[in-house]
């Protein structure tokens, strides 16, 4: 059976941006195609790795922003 979905559909599925009909077609294909399922798993694992990466701003930056906000508010009302 020829595939209706393209590899790009896998990405759209993982980011929840696939239209309902295309999603339904893709889910059906995934249930019949182990290679496609493996491809989806690989992308999902990489995305999960991105989710776990620590790219937080330093707490000092957060504190400085809060202080700036409070001070500038005081000046506005002075």
């Amino acid at each position, binding site marked *: 059976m020829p595939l209706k979905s393209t590899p790009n559909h896998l990405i759209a599925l993982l980011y929840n*941006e696939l239209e309902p009909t295309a999603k339904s077609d893709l889910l059906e294909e995934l249930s019949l195609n182990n290679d496609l399922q493996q491809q989806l798993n690989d992308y999902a694992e990489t995305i999960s*790795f*991105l989710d776990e*990466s620590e790219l937080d701003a330093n707490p*000092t930056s957060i504190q400085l922003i*809060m202080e700036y906000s409070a001070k500038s508010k005081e000046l506005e009302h002075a």
Partner: protein
Amino acid sequence: MKNVQQISDQELVHLYIQGNEACLEQLLKRHQRSIFSAIYLLVKNRALAEDIFQETFIKIIHTLRLGNYNEEGKFGPWAVRIGRNLTIDYIRKQKRNLTITDSDGNDILSYIQIAEESREDKLIQYQTEQNIKELVKRLPDEQREVLIMRHWGDMSFKEIAEKTGVSINTALGRMRYALSNLRKMMDQQAVKI
């Protein structure tokens, strides 16, 4: 009154404008990671990213207080766009202003940047949790841009396509190549997923 954690971004913005500072703190908590990541992955320098991150929020504070915010319900992507634009402005200024050449006509700044990067690289090598930053940096620009905008910038592929002037399918394809390339690099470096 609801706990700030249960309040939508839109409500937090309105309450902050009315003077509730705790609402800004909550907006920071929710979005600092995506904003900071978007900045860091472009400038590739922690200290500089912190400066631009602070500048981003100063601009956000002013925009909110002046009543010029009109992106209802889209605070996150809007804030990431501000951070990204400030970063791009900074990079453009650097390129324009700092071209000091040596006797052979080479840009001296490039030596300094290389030296800083290698020192930073060495530190990062010892911090396995930071591996992803290194891998993302190595992606081609077009792939890195889509990855940052979608994953940390919370922009839809449609918005990315409009912003970068390509079709949605091209944006999706770039994201797919970015993920595939990251996967390959992780396998090569035996990064544990």
